[in-house]
């Protein structure tokens, strides 16, 4: 704010993409709602089609919107001040994502440290335990629910450990891609970015394999009590975020191949990298809290 000359803040004129995006979200939400209702009633309906149409419109919107933004960026309309706006916007978006995960981590904490103990009769809940489920054993992982559903816990050794290593390494390769970009080593940038993408894809593949293993061999399902609930929702939402992060990185990779980004200006790369590191940090918390502890 101390600069004497005031940078021009580019305010785009009209854009059709927000309203297209709003229509897309309408189709997605309305379709998803009906889709879920259809599934639960085991009936066929139009929900799924609306949902797909919504995603198609969303993709159309994203392509158009990002094409505009990339064009504007490449023609030099974006000042440093705007770059700061974008960076701050992305940072606060990531904070909101952290809070989304906090809701589920909070639920896990409460279910494990409080609800399960109370169901086992601790604090002033002796009668709850005696009258409701006197055979319930409050041990974590909750492999047998008070209602009697049995399952098995997912061990942290094996696949989850390998996946942790993969994701941590992918964060490191992405860091080297960034230094490559900053030091004008385009070869290193491309190679490291490609490696990051491959590691991300491997992680997702192994995660799918783990889910199949859980369902088929361990009997660990989404509906097998509080352990299964938190396991699948936390790892599932994390997996969705990895997928999203990988898609963003893929587009960044294409832009790198086209010669975009300079050492000074590479907000899109930076945002994708922040997002990827955030997803990585969430996984480490997940690995410790959901798998190991």
């Amino acid at each position, binding site marked *: *704010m101390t600069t004497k000359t005031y940078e*021009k*803040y*580019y*305010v*785009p*004129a*009209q*854009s*059709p*993409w*927000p*309203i297209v*995006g*709003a*229509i897309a*979200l*309408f189709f997605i*939400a*309305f379709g*998803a*709602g009906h889709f*879920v*209702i259809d599934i639960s*009633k085991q009936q066929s309906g139009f929900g799924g089609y609306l949902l797909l149409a919504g995603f198609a419109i969303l993709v159309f919107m994203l392509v158009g919107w990002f094409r*505009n933004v990339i064009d*504007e960026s490449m023609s030099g309309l974006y000042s440093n*001040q705007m770059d700061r*706006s*974008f960076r701050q*916007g992305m940072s*606060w*978006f990531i*904070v*909101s994502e*952290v*809070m*989304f995960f*906090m*809701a589920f981590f*909070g*639920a896990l904490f*409460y*279910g494990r440290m409080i*609800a*399960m103990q109370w*169901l086992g009769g601790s*604090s*002033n809940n002796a009668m709850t335990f005696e009258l409701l*489920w006197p055979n319930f054993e409050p041990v974590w992982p909750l492999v047998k*629910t*008070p*209602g009697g559903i049995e399952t098995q816990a997912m061990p942290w050794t094996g696949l989850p450990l390998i996946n942790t290593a993969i994701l941590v390494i992918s964060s490191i390769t992405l860091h080297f891609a960034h230094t490559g970009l900053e030091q004008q080593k385009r070869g290193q940038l491309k190679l490291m970015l490609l490696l990051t993408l491959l590691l991300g894809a491997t992680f997702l593949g192994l995660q799918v394999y783990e889910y199949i293993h859980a369902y088929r061999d361990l009997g660990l399902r*989404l*509906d097998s*009590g*509080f*352990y299964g*609930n938190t396991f699948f*929702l936390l790892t599932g939402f994390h997996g969705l975020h990895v997928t999203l992060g990988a898609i963003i990185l893929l587009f960044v990779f294409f832009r790198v191949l086209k010669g975009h980004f300079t050492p000074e200006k590479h907000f899109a790369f930076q945002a994708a990298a922040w997002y990827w590191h955030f997803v990585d940090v969430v996984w480490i918390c997940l690995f410790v809290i959901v798998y190991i502890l």
Partner: protein
Amino acid sequence: MSVVITEPNDHEQHDHDHDHHDHKPSGITRWLYTTNHKDIGTMYLVFALVMFFIGGTMAMVIRLELFQPGMQFVEPHFFNQMTTVHGLIMVFGAVMPAFTGLANWMIPMMIGAPDMALPRMNNWSFWILPFAFLILLLSLFMPGGGPSFGWTFYAPLSTTYSSDSTALFVFSVHIMGISSIMGAINVIVTIWNMRAPGMTWMKMPLFVWTWFITAFLLIMVMPVLAGVVTMVLTDKYFGTSFFDAAGGGDPVLFQHIFWFFGHPEVYIMILPAFGIVSAIIPTFARKKLFGYASMVYATASIAILSFLVWAHHMFTTGMPVFATLFFMYATMLIAVPTGVKVFNWVATMWRGAMTFEVPMMFALAFIVLFTIGGFSGLMLAITPADFQYHDTYFVVAHFHYVLVTGAIFSIVAAVYYWLPKWTGNMYDETLGQWHFWCSLISVNMLFFPMHFVGLAGMPRRIPDYALQFADFNAFISIGGFLFGLSQLIFVWVLIKCARGGVKATDQVWEGAEGLEWEVPSPAPYHTFETPPVIK
């Protein structure tokens, strides 16, 4: 696509040609495609007004049924849908969008910025809102009806016992959340990054400060709301048991997560109101705001404390005594920074040269009536007393005092205050005074007796009641109908002012200070393309 998108060349000319830049696009695409913070602000405000009347109509249905004991007009299930959707619409469709609309209109003008920091996203965050409420309202027409579990959608009412359409409710709340988060990010980035040179943090108007802090609350808690509706969705449709003890969960867990969102949410709906009142009182008292810095710190303190008090909504759930004590004392602590604010407003008026135009009247009513709502909040904060008050009309009286005579009165005050700046015309002062006095009298007829029926034990969210409450309820209903009718005067004032009237000066109000009063009335389509000089 045949749509014209910004040509960079066109942009270059604007540096030299300001008048050219001021032409407004015409037709429906002006509103659909806009990136202009004033257009978007206007759309937010109009949308909020429409939702206010839709939600208000539902309140009229509620008051009609409660006019007499016994069941007269609607089925209990429909009554429950009315209370639920009335709450959802007023919170997410009326109050929050109205504040966001005011933020859009005023924040760039108050800090000397050319527009909001992320103008296209700004438009997106507005346009998804009407669709979210379309989905919510459509769900009322589904087989089995719409949401009927209260706006707080406690499990298991929203899981085991809810109607099939609950998934639509869940996804519409998701969209409202996305809209709020994008709006909040835009506000934070705008304030952080777009202030004109010399507009230091401690020179910002309090409306900007309060919105800045509100936006942080939104970013922190709206994702938690998204999380908890997602758990409701999976519990209802995919067999999870987050809120089912048989599967190892706990229905009380729902309340913890919901109120972790819900309590900061109530401050989201009142902090910008503090900012508005802090703008209006000094103008009409013709004095500088007393204790500016303490106002800023008080706002921040309230925001921080708001994360530590959520379980005061849950005193009767059988929490451990230690927890209830903690939440009781933390809640009472909030009275301190709030008291600082009320003191500062009163001290600002002390020996001021006061005049009593409509915005000032609403601001004064805000101070008195919001304080009543605050005091009943203190009563509710006392754990043992809350055992008696919980789930009675006393609670309804409390939160309507803070939300109607608090949040909504401040929004109305803000509209009267800035309307001349928006339209270029003065509103009709006589009609405005009629609107104020009718609203003031009817709103107290409507909500004040609720304290008494609540203390006498009348439960909330029930379509029928014991006979001894009959007279009070008839009186309350009459107050409700009168309050609803009084708002039609408001619409009349707005339309009249938009169509013409006495031309407003640039400063509009004699005692008004701030950047927004230095630009012409009506404010040009684009303000501050080159930053203003801050004294």
